[in-house]
């Protein structure tokens, strides 16, 4: 809760300074208010759209071998952790998102509050993809020790690709189209851009499709990885 507030504070200060120092009225055709709103929302959405704790737990379970107790349950490892992960995110997002929601109601920064439910829906759809990525990474724990650094690398990469650092439309072409069309932009850039008026309904719909395509590719890949890992695991008899 405190973390995104601090992050948002620093980012808002940064954009204020950029506008003050540059003397320009708009950057990339959007005004100052748009950036401030983006910086505020992005800090909170980024927090929701990333997975540290549950990925860490999945890896621990595999590392320590306590995964066996989960495997014995009548629910798959994937589903077991997906339900926990989403449940946790529902609660935390309800609490933490009230902060920017109320703030933006009072301060006159550009936000379309009616778009909030649709934006949140996209984020939760995206979380299924996030979980699938985490599941794939956890599967590597069957093959290697000490893979927590993999979580670190992935989350820093997503930090960039989601658009927490800056609105992705500032990136020069051709990278810009690439990064925006990747499903990871649905973590921050698309929902926040949609909320703050940078993007329209069509962009949101495209993002749903992009996440769905991402899942279509990643789901079979991750389950293959998991099965291969389990085979290797039981092979060593650990």
């Amino acid at each position, binding site marked *: 809760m405190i*973390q995104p507030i*601090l*992050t948002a504070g*620093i980012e808002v*200060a*940064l954009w204020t*300074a*950029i506008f003050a*120092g*540059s003397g*320009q009225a708009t*950057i*990339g055709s959007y005004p100052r208010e748009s950036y401030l709103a983006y910086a505020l929302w992005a800090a909170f959405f980024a927090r929701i759209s990333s997975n540290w704790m549950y990925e860490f737990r999945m890896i621990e379970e595999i590392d320590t071998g306590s995964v066996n107790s989960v495997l014995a349950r009548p629910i798959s490892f994937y589903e077991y952790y997906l339900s926990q992960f989403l449940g946790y995110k529902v609660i935390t997002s309800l609490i933490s998102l009230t902060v920017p929601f109320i703030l933006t109601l009072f301060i006159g920064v550009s936000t379309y509050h009616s778009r909030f439910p649709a934006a949140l829906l996209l984020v939760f759809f995206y979380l299924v993809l996030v979980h699938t990525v985490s599941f794939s990474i956890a599967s590597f724990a069957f093959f*290697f*020790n*000490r*893979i927590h*650094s*993999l979580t*670190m*690398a992935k989350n*820093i*990469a997503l*930090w*960039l690709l989601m658009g927490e*650092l*800056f609105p992705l439309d*500032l*990136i*020069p072409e051709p990278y810009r189209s690439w990064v925006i069309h990747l499903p990871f932009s649905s973590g921050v850039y698309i929902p926040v851009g949609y909320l703050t008026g940078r993007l329209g309904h069509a962009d949101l719909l495209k993002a749903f499709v992009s996440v769905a395509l991402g899942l279509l590719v990643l789901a079979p890949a991750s389950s293959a990885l998991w099965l291969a890992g389990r085979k290797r695991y039981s092979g060593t008899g650990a």
Partner: protein
Amino acid sequence: MRKYMNILYGFFKASAIADLEYRLNIVMKVVTDIIWYLAQVSVFEVIFRNVDQVGGWNLHSARVFIAALFVVDSIWMLLFSENLDRLSDKVRRGELDLLLSKPVNSQFMMSFQRLSTPYLINILITIGYLNWAFFSLPEPPSGWRLLMLIVLVPCSLMITYGMRFFFSAAALIFARAENINYIWWQFYRLGMRPDALYPPWLRYIVLTVIPVGFLASVPARLILGSNEWGFIVAAIGLGAFMVWVSTRFWAFALKRYSSASS
């Protein structure tokens, strides 16, 4: 002094042997930091492609700034990432007891015993990037200014060390390490942007109370041709002061620990 250099070399050797055990880990550490560098670089590259200059910084000088930050950061990671980030952990597991029974300064042992040797690769990369950023300036100042880094980088490290040490040792006393580490990280982040971006009051703070401005802003400004020589003196003085404060603080924490632990 010679003895301590000798011990430091011993730590380096032992750490290297330990690190080479986990090859994937080496690769991941290097790759993770490269991704982190890319993220930081992209912020400035993207912003300055849309804005000509901010508070006196343009794309070229911002590159030098970020490169200076990376150099300091990569050396920091080599020396202290393992040692100071996990200081309170180690104390809780009782490793301090064994350190205290050694005839060597315990703060020295605690601060340097486990070096993260994979970051040597990163140091080469960041120094390379700094050279490139410096010499691709439209009007590069004379090259001898880079030599000032031989003094300025150790000063940055000493100042950062003092601040970080304070936070780590505070975690020892207050026992809630995660939150304290988080606050530290937020301070560090303040140092990851040129100080000129901040409003005057905040700029004053990052150069005095929480001197993260010395992390990269001051060194970058000086090598970019600024003649604020006072800052060199300030950096040296502050560096020495911060390290001195850290030794006092360690003595205090130790006394407390020795009186409280079982």
